[in-house]
């Protein structure tokens, strides 16, 4: 339990202290903390998942002062994750109270699930932030480049956890 809390604190810290202050390009805005929602335990009730998503979004919004944007995006993230995971055969892992990961789902399902959710998340927050005055070209480039970087970092996280176990 303590390990999980430390892992959550580290990921959130990495997001708000490092990634949010990356000054590589205006087109790069990676949101890696969603890996915490992606890898939630499979047996967790839907209501709890929603509340955790809401809470994590609230924390992110407090750090970057964007009230509601990450909260809304996290809620959609959880709902889409539920819909995707319902189509995957994960009952046995759920009964064993395992988290969603490459190890439990397999590389391909995990990769596609992560790809869909990460791309959705980035485009959703870019749309919410620019609502009413969206620059499509900027949004597409930023969304894709940020998603790519986030996928890479999440892949690294998963690799580290695989090696650990």
């Amino acid at each position, binding site marked *: 339990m303590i390990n999980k809390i430390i892992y959550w604190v580290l990921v959130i810290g990495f997001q708000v202290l490092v990634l949010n202050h990356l000054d590589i390009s205006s087109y790069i805005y990676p949101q890696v903390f969603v890996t915490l929602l992606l890898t939630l335990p499979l047996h967790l009730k839907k209501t709890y998942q929603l*509340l955790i998503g809401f809470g994590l979004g609230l924390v992110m919004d407090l750090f970057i002062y964007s*009230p509601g*944007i990450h*909260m*809304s995006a996290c*809620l959609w993230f959880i709902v889409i994750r539920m819909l995707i995971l319902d189509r995957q055969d994960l009952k046995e892992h759920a009964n064993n109270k395992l988290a969603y990961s490459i190890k439990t789902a397999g590389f391909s399902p995990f990769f596609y699930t992560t790809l869909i959710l990460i791309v959705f998340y980035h485009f959703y927050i870019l749309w*919410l932030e620019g*609502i*009413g*005055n969206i620059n499509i070209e900027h949004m597409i480039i930023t969304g894709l480049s940020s998603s790519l970087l986030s996928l890479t970092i999440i892949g690294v996280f998963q690799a580290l956890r695989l090696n650990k176990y």
Partner: protein
Amino acid sequence: MQRLFAFIEHNFHIILFVILQTICGFLIFSLNPYQQATFSKAAMGVTSTINKLSSDVYSYWDLKDQNIWLQNQVSEQFKESFPQSLYYLNDTFPIRDTSMHRLFDAIPAQVVFNTAHKTNNIFLINKGLSHGIKKNMGVISSQGIAGVVLSSNQNYSSVMSLLNTNMKITPHINGQEYFTEMIWDNSKPNCLSINGINKLEQINLGDIVSSGNSSLLFPKGIPIGHVSKINNLPKSQYFELELEAATNFRDLEYVFVIVNNEYSRLKDLLSND
């Protein structure tokens, strides 16, 4: 009730999702200045469209009341709009009549039946004896002269339309009264004819034909129509004029019955002569 609770329990996560998203929406559009401005702009567009729609619907339902109100307004204005008639009375009977009372009143009415395609057209109005309407009162529309009351019962009156071969009015053109008859000969809809105006008179196309002082039924200056054709027959010393009626009888909805307050006295005086 149990089914309701079961439904809520089964779909609680959906209800929770909707509630939380609503909170998020509230936060996004109330605490983020840019999103708030965008939302306000969009909301203003939506509300203005809805308000316009609501206003259009309300205006439509309110048309009948507005029509009645306008009729009454026009009727009131009518009472004050013919000073010449008043001056005529005052000048003529300065000693007998110093009260400046009105010569004409107007009673608003609605047309409930109308014909415009027959040889002798009439229309019915929803005002009768109980409203002070009697035989031989003039009837005008907002455009011009419409007819003369033929008969009345308690609540309705029949009116001889201008488009009736028995209808005869003395025309007044360019400030002059012509003591000839203006008739409807049923040759063209909405077209009247005047014969017997000498070719020496200055008559032009478009001249307004109106009521004059020789009628006790209508105030002076109520339009009858305008000259639409001048037939200059070479073997005649008179014009044959065609004029288009000012009132559109095919779309006659509201009229005013003219009450000459001095009709009986003036009529008696004229009959004595």
